[in-house]
């Protein structure tokens, strides 16, 4: 089982990251990945910059825990998580969530699960900057609901 987590200001090369994940899990039959991107419009207008604040130390730990929960629930071979912090421009890459498995269902579900948990449990906060000035992005109730669907019966 391969697991790598990064929190970094710099951009990432999706192709190279997926290549590395595949090289680490050569038995994989399925690779699923998600890339989150800075949208250039917000509720208030055109966005020119997105600033991502985080809680150093806790972010890495939260991502590790999310990945480990996914590993316990699905038969995964590898996981790669990257989340950027700092100042990003419109259309920049924010986050990469990737998983490999023998069959596609595990990788699909695990990636969706990890994004739903990341959105609600990993300490990152987005601030949008544009012609409207700047504002913190509001948490979406739909993200919390998305997480609830993964709750296991006790």
């Amino acid at each position, binding site marked *: 089982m391969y697991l790598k987590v990064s929190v970094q200001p710099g951009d990432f090369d999706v192709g190279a990251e997926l290549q590395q994940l595949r090289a680490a899990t050569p038995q994989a039959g399925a690779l699923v990945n998600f890339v989150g991107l800075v949208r250039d419009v917000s509720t208030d207008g055109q966005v020119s910059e997105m600033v991502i604040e985080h809680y150093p130390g806790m972010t890495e730990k939260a991502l590790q825990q999310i990945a480990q929960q996914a590993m316990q629930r699905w038969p995964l071979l590898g996981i790669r998580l990257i989340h950027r912090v700092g100042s990003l421009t419109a259309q920049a890459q924010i986050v990469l969530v990737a998983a490999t498995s023998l069959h596609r269902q595990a990788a699909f579900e695990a990636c969706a699960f990890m994004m739903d948990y990341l959105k609600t449990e990993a*300490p*990152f*906060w987005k601030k949008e900057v544009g012609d409207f000035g700047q504002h913190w*992005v509001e948490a979406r109730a739909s993200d919390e609901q998305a997480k609830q669907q993964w709750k296991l019966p006790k």
Partner: protein
Amino acid sequence: MKITILYFARIKEVVNYSSEDVVLPEEVETIIALKSWLSGRGATWQKLFDGSGVVRAAINHELVDDMATFDEGDEVAFFPPVTGG
């Protein structure tokens, strides 16, 4: 007991700094008691913890709820709902 408190994002902007070391009275050992104790500092703090906005808390990098307890030397953090991803 002495702990470190960190503030993030909108909450950091409200309190106007990102961290502080505080020495707490003995009975303040839960998140809810800490929120109440901090509210005693004045209107800004009271408004922050009056329930009008969600404030999440972590102890030593773990998300916790209001009833969680901390110990001497712990790092407690307050922040708004997260919006990464």
